[in-house]
C-alpha cells in the first residue's frame, strides 16, 4: 500500500499531472527559452534543482513556518536556491547562462515551484515531497524537451547543434522566434485536448472549461 503511494507520487508529475502540458503552469520559461535544446536542458536542470531543494526544505520546515507568512517564507527559500543555481550556471556554462539571461532569475516566480510548495510540500512528509518534486521536475523537463526539439529541428534544422536535414534544408526561422513558441505549445495543447476528448467518449462538460478553471485556481495559488 505504502509502496503504491510512493510510485504514484513520483509518476503523476510525468504525464497525468504534467505541470506544463496538463496543468498549464510555468508558461513563461516554457515559451521563452525553448528555441534551442541546449537552453532547454540547462533550464530544465536548474528548475529541477530548485524545485527539489525547496520542496525538501519547505516540507522539513512545515511545522515551523507560521501560516500567515508562509508565502513570503517559501519565496525567500526559493529565491535562495535560485541564486545558487544562477551562480553555478554562471561558473560552469557561461555561454548558456548568457543566453538564458534574466530567465534563470525568473525561476523564482515560476508558478510550478510555488504551486508544489503550497499544494504538496507544505502538507506532506519530506520523503513524499521529495518524490513529488522529482516527478514534477522530470515532467517539466519532458515538456521542455518536447518544445525545444520541435522548435530547434524545424527552426534551425539542427538538434543540439548537429545538422538533421542536411545543407539543403531551408529553416523555418519563425519557429525559433517568439511566435513559434506560442504556436508550438498551442498546437501541442490542442493535440492533447483532442486526444483526451477522443478517449473519453461522453464528456459531461467540455474539457476546455476544466482548463480555464485550472488557470484561475493556479492564479489563486
Amino acid at each position, binding site marked *: 500500500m505504502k509502496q503504491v503511494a510512493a510510485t504514484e507520487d513520483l509518476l503523476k508529475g510525468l504525464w497525468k499531472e504534467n505541470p506544463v502540458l496538463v496543468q498549464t503552469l510555468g*508558461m513563461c520559461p516554457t515559451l521563452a527559452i525553448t528555441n534551442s535544446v541546449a537552453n532547454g536542458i540547462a533550464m530544465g536542470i536548474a528548475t529541477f534543482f530548485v524545485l527539489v531543494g525547496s520542496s525538501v526544505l519547505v516540507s522539513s520546515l512545515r511545522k515551523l513556518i507560521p501560516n500567515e507568512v508562509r508565502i513570503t517564507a517559501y519565496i525567500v527559500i526559493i529565491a535562495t536556491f535560485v541564486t545558487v543555481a544562477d551562480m553555478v550556471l554562471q561558473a560552469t556554462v557561461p555561454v548558456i547562462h548568457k543566453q538564458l539571461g534574466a530567465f534563470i532569475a525568473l525561476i523564482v*516566480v*515560476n508558478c510550478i515551484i510555488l504551486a508544489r510548495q503550497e499544494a504538496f510540500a507544505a502538507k506532506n512528509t519530506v520523503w513524499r515531497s521529495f518524490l513529488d518534486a522529482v516527478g514534477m521536475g522530470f515532467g517539466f523537463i519532458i515538456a521542455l524537451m518536447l518544445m525545444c526539439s520541435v522548435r530547434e529541428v524545424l527552426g534551425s534544422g539542427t538538434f543540439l547543434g548537429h545538422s538533421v536535414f542536411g545543407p539543403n534544408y531551408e529553416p523555418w526561422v519563425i519557429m525559433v522566434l517568439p511566435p513559434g513558441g506560442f504556436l508550438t505549445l498551442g498546437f501541442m495543447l490542442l*493535440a492533447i485536448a483532442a486526444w483526451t476528448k477522443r478517449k473519453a467518449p461522453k464528456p459531461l462538460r467540455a474539457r476546455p472549461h476544466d482548463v480555464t478553471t485550472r488557470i484561475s485556481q493556479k*492564479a489563486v495559488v
Partner: protein
Amino acid sequence: MGDVLWVFVSSMLVNNFTLIMFLGLCPFLGVSNKVDTGLRMGAANIFVLVLTSIAVSFLNKFVLVSAPYLRLISFIVVIASLVQIVEMAIKKLSPTLFRELGIYLPLITTNCAILGLAQFQTSRGYDFTEGLAFALGGGLGLMLALVLMASIREHLELADVPSVLKGVGFVLVLAGTLSLAFMGFAGLFSAS
C-alpha cells in the same frame, strides 16, 4: 531624451513584454476573458511596475553595490512588500477600487513581468529616467496585449467554434498570431 523615448517605444511595441519577451503570461492567459478586467489588470500592473522601477533604481544605487549576491532576494522581498503596501493603501483610500481589483492585486507579486522588469533594468544598466520609461512602456504594452487578446476572446464567445478548440491551446495559437503581428514593429527603428 532620444534614449528615453527609444526605451519607451521599444518596451511597449518592439519588445512587447507579453508577446515577444514572454513575461506575465499567467494573467495574459488567465484574465483575458473580458476587455474590462483586462484594462483593470493592465492598470494595476502599470502602477506596480512604475513603483518597482523606482524602488529598484534606489536599491541598485545605494544597497546592492556592496552585496550583489543578495540581488534576487532583495528584489523579490521589495516587490512583495510593495504590492502589500499598495493593497493596503488602496483598501484605505478607495474601497470600491479595491473590490474591483480583487484577487488580481496580490497576484501581481508572482507576475514574472515585475521581477523581469527589475532584472532587465539592472542587467541593461538603465538609469532612473530610463527605468521609468521602461516600466511605463512595458506596462502599457502589457495592457495593450491584454486588451487585444480580451477583445478577440469576447468575439470568439459568440462564434461557433469546435469544442476541441475552446481551451488554452487555442488562446496560445491566437497569441502566436498576435506575436507575429508585433514582430512587424521590429523594423521600427532600424531604418533611421
